[in-house]
């Protein structure tokens, strides 16, 4: 067993886990944070995207042991109680989700991206999503949601 001590959504969490425990199963099964989904076994679909020290990573391609001592943020941390954050709100407003399975990964990938590029073009948004697959939306309203969020978030700071 390996001891893992990690800050998850601002809370210190620790556990002894098998070394082979992938971060996504540590989150889902050890900590009960089931908002992060698993859609593939090849790091292709991005459904499992979370933030590691604020940057998007695929939690199915990381060992829990690798994130010891670091900060992980998952979809569960974004809303303030019932109030969706601006990105979640934009997905809702623009119909940026259908079945919702890829959505947590999309939202987390977009969170990381908008931090790096707060005023992106449509092309840049599409490139930022190259590691996240969706089968329902054709991506159009996801892209629209992220552009809308970028606008509303920059509006809020000026």
């Amino acid at each position, binding site marked *: 067993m390996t001891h893992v001590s990690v800050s998850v959504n601002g809370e210190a969490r620790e556990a002894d886990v098998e*070394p082979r425990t992938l971060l996504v*199963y540590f989150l889902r099964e050890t900590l009960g944070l089931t908002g992060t989904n698993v859609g593939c076994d090849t*790091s292709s679909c991005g459904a499992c995207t979370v933030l590691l020290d604020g940057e998007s990573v695929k939690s199915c*391609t*990381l060992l829990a042991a690798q994130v010891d001592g670091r900060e992980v943020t998952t979809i569960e941390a974004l809303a303030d109680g019932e109030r969706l954050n601006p990105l979640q709100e934009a997905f809702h407003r623009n119909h940026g989700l259908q079945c919702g399975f890829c959505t947590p990964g999309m939202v987390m*990938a977009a969170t*990381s*991206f908008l931090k790096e590029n707060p005023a992106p073009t449509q092309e840049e948004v599409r490139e930022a999503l190259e590691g996240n697959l969706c089968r329902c939306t054709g991506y159009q309203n996801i892209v629209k949601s992220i552009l809308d969020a970028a606008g509303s978030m920059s509006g809020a700071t000026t």
Partner: protein
Amino acid sequence: MIPAPFEYARAESIDHAIELLGTSEDAKILAGGHSLLPLMRFRLARPDLLVDIGRLSDLSYIREDGDVVAIGALTRHHDVANSELIQTACPIVADTAAQIGDPQVRHMGTIGGSVAHADPASDLPTVLVALGADLAITAAGGASRTVNARDFFQGLFTADLAANEVLTEVRIPKTTAGWSYLKFHRRAQDWALVGVAAIQRNGGATVALTNMGETPLRAAGVEEALAGGADPATASLRADEGAAPPSDAFGSAEYRRELSRVLVRRALEEAMGG
């Protein structure tokens, strides 16, 4: 899938990592894990010990060293792509790093891991071969050696790196002459079907190919033709000389050969300001 069971050890230093690697027949280094863990999830790789060097923060750096930019082996693709120093001093490296995988992969994957994995479909090795970058390697007892990228890649997933050695640094000669890295792929997140790195050299160019054989390849025929005064269009016809491209679901060998000719011409036109 979930990897088969293994032991896990965190290295505190390079020497410690080398020592740990010596404790098991079947140990593997874990850097970002983005080459190794996918294989382990399908149980195609079943190391009994993983030596995690991810904590060796002194292996993550980008610094100027005279005519060279030195990049620590644990520097992530994301940091390589966004480094102002690299963008200025060796722009082809920053541009290529930005084309690897997807943002999440670039946030974890490291230059050292990518080079040591020696996957011929990988982009950075080709660029390092074109640039003639040096690779610094540390072995047991602190012995260190340097090998040029052009000699490092020996075969499919095989490199001049022993099981108890650690790749520590990539040293890239500053290169701002005309350059191009063209990656042809079906989807943005896919490996290159074919990739071409071209760097202008007085009158001619150095040209290297991704996924046209078991290692990154120099397009020697093209370089020779250019040196002999051929124009890019003519020289590019020799792009696949000596290449042995694979045939797979993405494309046949024959098609890859044709792509290499087209892409070499286009890369040369970009690099040589055609």
